[in-house]
């Protein structure tokens, strides 16, 4: 059952001949960069020093305490140097490692930000110096800078023009290269009216001509927002992050109390034992820094930024970290049937001949009737005939046959060929057609057609002149792997609801085939909104995808609303995420990323706190080595000198931050397991592991310090 996030839980198998393969599964990795990209690392190292500025660091209480400690230690070290000079080597090393602790934490954050910044830079390049051909009030075209365009202006865009700003196509149709935004090189069609009218500034017209009405002012365009988002310029802490920050700040204060009061207790003990001295401020600061949760404190913001970045790598633009976090909490997933659960179109799966007609004859007629049918359904009939009966597509010229196109009046299509009038269409239309031609519609075929309808399929009847040849069974094809995916969702505690315009009967059949938990049939946008409100009233969080303008209210109401990039501007504004690949199935990955984000935070917090156990065993005996030699029995690691013990703990504490940077950036692997199983696993790895790991770690550093004669 366990599937790691690394492998997208499902990728629809490529289905040749179907129009619907909109970038399914292509998304991942499109924007991926290696974790330690040299230019990013270089910039991050520099930034780590810039971030030492106490004003900015004060936002992170844990690291701020470390910095204050480092500064204090440095001051004391300088005093030692100026006076006696004894113990300078030890003090120097402690001071240096405390500064490293802060720098390592800064580096983690800078690395996480660097990835976004690099992306923002490449986006920014597309913004430079675009010119717009603005349609003046008198119909005259004037060339202006794109930066001067205001809401409501109308521009003309022709091949090789960069669209100067976000807008709606009000006239024309064009193929547009949106790779700047989506990373997808295949062009998309943008046309006036309907749900494909939105164009984004910075994209490029490849063919034809469109008239665009600008919908956003400079600085507020989609590209601008995207740059700001990937750069993390307006990053706000998410609710969970704030709660966690409160907890680790609280723990920091508790440890501060424990360490500060250790001074009087030590004083008392020194007086009582009449031996030793009270631990120096430097030693107390070292103990404090080792105890406070520096690991998670140092990595917390990196985890958050990296989480957003992971969403971005899936080619989804999250408008806030809050939305990503909410995705992890989602209880109910609303999925549109078409395009998400099923392939976009129905496909022929079976030919059922009438009495006295062979299946091959029916297939032959069906193929003939569909040769000129360019709809996906028509093509699927040709494909089925070929696959099942080896019937090759025939070249039939205009002179040999007369093709009858589908019209809303006749509701049939077909051809007249070699004296035969072959037609296919809905049962009622064909019944009328054959009756008019003097034929009879066999009862058996009525039963067959009804049977198909009942199971959620669509029957198409084929006739030749007055004779009914049989029925083609068209079916909604559920995408491969969906069932398993929904089963995983169930394990994760997420209920899936299929939304469809189909009647309840059809909907029920597809729902049971796909394995969703529930369905909403004959759904209107209003129904969708009501469903969301109902779920939310029960305390559940709802996620959905949508693209049309009429989806906007539901997208806005949902806790996680993913708008398709192909969708309208209204939809994109209403949702809190935009999927640049317009792949509705991706919602499932977004949920996993949201969970991963929280798991990473929780795991590193647990790890950080669990680490403290070993540090006590290292430092406490070292502090009172002279006052209470008996305490050395707690020195179970056998650290060789008190200085070395303290130094080893401090060094371990600093290095563990760097060691965990990749984990913070990549996130803890998420497995689709039940909450109990997941917790058991993570507690074992990060809780128990967190207790055990520092013992050998500190021991090894202590040995090394001994070998190098550093302490």
């Amino acid at each position, binding site marked *: 059952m366990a599937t790691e996030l690394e492998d997208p839980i499902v990728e629809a198998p490529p289905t040749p001949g179907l129009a619907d393969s909109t970038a399914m599964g292509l998304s991942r990795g499109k924007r991926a960069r290696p974790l330690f990209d040299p230019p990013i690392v270089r910039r991050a190292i520099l930034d780590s020093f810039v971030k030492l500025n106490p004003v900015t660091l004060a936002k992170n209480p844990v690291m701020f305490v470390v910095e204050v400690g480092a500064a204090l230690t440095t001051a004391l070290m300088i005093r030692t140097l100026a006076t006696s000079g004894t113990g300078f080597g030890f003090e120097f090393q402690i001071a240096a490692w405390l500064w490293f602790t802060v720098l390592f934490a800064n580096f983690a954050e800078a690395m996480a930000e660097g990835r976004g910044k690099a992306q923002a830079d490449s986006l920014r390049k597309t913004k430079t110096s675009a010119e717009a051909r603005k349609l003046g009030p008198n119909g005259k075209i004037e060339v202006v800078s794109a930066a001067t365009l205001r809401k409501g202006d109308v521009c003309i865009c022709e091949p090789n023009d960069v669209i100067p700003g976000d807008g709606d196509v009000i006239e024309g149709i064009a193929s547009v290269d949106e790779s700047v935004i989506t990373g997808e090189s295949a062009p998309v069609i943008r046309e006036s009216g309907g749900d494909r009218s939105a164009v984004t500034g910075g994209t490029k017209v490849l063919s034809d001509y469109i008239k665009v009405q600008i919908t956003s002012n400079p600085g507020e365009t989609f590209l601008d927002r995207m740059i700001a988002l990937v750069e993390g310029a307006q990053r706000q802490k998410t609710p969970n992050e704030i709660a966690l920050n409160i907890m680790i700040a609280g723990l920091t204060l508790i440890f501060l*109390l424990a360490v500060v*009061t250790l001074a009087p207790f030590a004083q008392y*003990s020194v007086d009582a034992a009449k031996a030793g001295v009270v631990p120096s401020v430097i030693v107390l600061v070292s103990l404090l820094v080792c105890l406070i949760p520096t690991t998670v404190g140092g990595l917390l913001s990196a985890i958050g930024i990296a989480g957003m970045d992971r969403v971005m790598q899936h080619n989804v633009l999250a408008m806030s970290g809050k939305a990503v976090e909410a995705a992890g909490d989602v209880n109910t997933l609303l999925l549109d049937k078409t395009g998400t659960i099923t392939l976009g179109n129905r496909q022929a799966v079976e030919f059922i001949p009438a009495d006295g007609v062979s299946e091959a004859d029916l297939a032959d007629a069906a193929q003939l009737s569909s040769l000129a049918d360019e709809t996906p359904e028509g093509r699927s009939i040709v494909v089925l005939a070929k696959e099942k009966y080896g019937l090759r597509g025939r070249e039939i010229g205009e002179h040999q046959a007369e093709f009858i196109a589908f019209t809303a009046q006749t509701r049939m299509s077909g051809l007249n060929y070699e004296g035969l009038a072959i037609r296919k269409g809905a049962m009622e239309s064909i019944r009328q057609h054959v009756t008019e031609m003097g034929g009879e519609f066999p009862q058996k075929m009525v039963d067959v057609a009804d049977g198909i309808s009942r199971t959620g399929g669509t029957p198409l009847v084929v006739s030749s002149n007055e004779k009914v040849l049989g029925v083609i069974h068209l079916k909604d094809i559920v995408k491969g792997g969906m069932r398993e995916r929904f089963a995983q969702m169930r394990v994760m505690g997420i209920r899936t609801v299929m939304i469809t315009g189909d009647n309840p009967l059809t909907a029920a059949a597809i729902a049971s085939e796909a394995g969703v938990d529930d369905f909403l049939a004959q759904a209107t946008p209003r129904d969708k909104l009501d469903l969301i409100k109902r779920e939310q009233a029960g305390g559940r969080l709802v996620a959905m995808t949508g693209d049309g303008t009429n989806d906007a209210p539901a997208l806005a109401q949902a806790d996680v609303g993913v708008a398709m990039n192909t969708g309208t501007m209204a939809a994109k504004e209403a949702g809190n995420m935009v999927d640049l690949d317009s792949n509705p199935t991706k919602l499932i990955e977004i949920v996993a990323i*949201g969970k991963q984000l929280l798991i990473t935070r929780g795991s590193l917090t647990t790890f950080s706190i669990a680490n403290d156990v070993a540090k006590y065993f290292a430092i406490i005996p070292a502090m009172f080595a002279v006052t209470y030699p008996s305490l050395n029995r707690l020195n179970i690691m056998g650290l060789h000198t008190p200085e070395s013990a303290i130094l080893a703990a401090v060094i371990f504490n600093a290095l563990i931050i760097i060691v965990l940077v990749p984990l913070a950036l990549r996130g803890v692997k998420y497995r689709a397991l039940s909450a109990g199983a997941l917790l058991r696993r993570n507690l074992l790895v990060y809780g128990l592991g967190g207790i055990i790991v520092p013992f050998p770690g500190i021991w090894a550093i202590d040995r090394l310090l001994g070998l190098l004669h550093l302490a």
Partner: protein
Amino acid sequence: MTINGWLQIAIFFILIVACAKPLGSFIATIIEGRKNFLTPVLAPVERLIYRLCGVTETEEQHWTRYAGALLAFSLFSAVLLYAIQRLQAWFPFNPQGYGAGNVSPDLGFNTSVSFVTNTNWQSYTPETTLSYFVQMAGLTMHNFTSAAAGLAVAIALVRGFARQSIKTVGNFWVDMTRAVLYVLLPISVIAALVLCSQGAIQNLHPYTVATTLEGAKQTIAQGPVASQEAIKMLGTNGGGFFNANSAHPFENPTPFTNMLQMFLIFLIPGALTYTFGKMVRDTRQGWALFAAMTILWLGGVVVAYHYEQRGTPMLANAGIQMSATDTQTGGNMEGKETRFGIADTALFATVTTDASCGAINGWHDSFTPLGGLVPLFNIELGEVVFGGVGAGLYGMLMFAILAVFIAGLMVGRTPEYLGKKIEQKEVKMAMIAMLVLAASILLFSGASSVIPFAAKGYWNPPGPAAANINNPGAHGLSEILYAYSSGTGNNGSAFAGINANTPWYNVTIGFATLIGRFLMLLPLLAIAGSLAEKKQVPVSAGTFPTHGPLFVGLLVGVVIIVGALTYFPALSLGPIVEHLML
């Protein structure tokens, strides 16, 4: 360690388990105001009280008003108790003629806040300080009300979990009244009668002067003991009628009463876990808390019993038999009553500090270092192992919130407990409560271990405050730590070995009790209010189950780790080094 000892521990535990469900569901019944077998007798009394006090039974309070009522009540009763003590000469039932001279202002303050906060720290020797009237109308009365107030707060917090989208958490006055009337009073009456039957005294006589066999004169203190004794245990108060507390034969005459007293300590706290489960409509949740508490309790008993029986090398070197025989308990019997022995004393010490009771039947100061570490550490864990009446439950729920917060993140969801999301506000309040407790214990102890006093001061005899302790060295540090832990934890038991009846100690320990009680209660009531307003998230497979062994283990782990990390430095210089130096 003997079979007899383990059997007694087992019998004790079986009694607690057996009573959890019946008493727990009874408390749920009365707290929700439903009919029960006592209704015919007590309902008219209850209604009369409401009428006299102008309380509207059905009127609910926002958490701030609930807290306000609690604070007002506590302030009023604290002032009242102070006045009764200082003015005891004016009141009847004072055969020994005690007056204001016996109760200095700082002692009066300390005793007053100590009883209002359910701490019952006693800096004084009761039989030479207070009249019978003060013991009855002052102390015994507070034993009831402070326990009832704790229970009320716990119920308010449980309501926070049980309710949804409601702004109120109950009515403090109604909760208090019902707790006293239906739970504390009836059980106390029965328990007092049983104690009397075993030889606990109950009179208002002047002290008896007897001539001993050696011909010496001895004053034997008297008083209404049994009635105070029952609620002292049941309400987890712990303030003894006599200085010797439950080691005194008039308070705790027989091994049977000893068992009864320990049983009374855990009776309500154990039952409240069931009440909790019942009110949140999932009794497994209550049993999970019960299980976590049991593990922590048993761990304490085993350690204390083991180290007390093992004794010390010094005792062994002195030629004392360390292992038990048919006629001798062996082990460390210093400071223990022979009629209770090692098992019952170790168990009593563990139980009284698991709960915030603080009654003692032996001197904790005389325990071996690790045997004495058990009660000290129990208190520092926050007395959440069954804990005080109400206080144990709300303390444990606070830890549950923290445990769930960390664990919940690790399952990839906003943490939730019983369907309530644990967010900023809850975490903040829980951290404040924890921080305040740690600050009170550590800062006061730290100050007392080094602060010096001038030659002619009011606060303390001249010299360092640490000079008030009788055992210098690591043991002395344990004594100071214990005093402030006991005060802050509202336990009230003394490690002893320290002269705490000076203005410095009286005032600082008094403040520690106030901090430990109210600065813990207020954040928890805030959590109750915030939870009550939240919606309940339905349970799904993605919800981390909080009724299984995993959660129990996690909760136990969090309680121990938080306690250990906070107090390890201090403890390492007290009991731990003392043990290592043996």
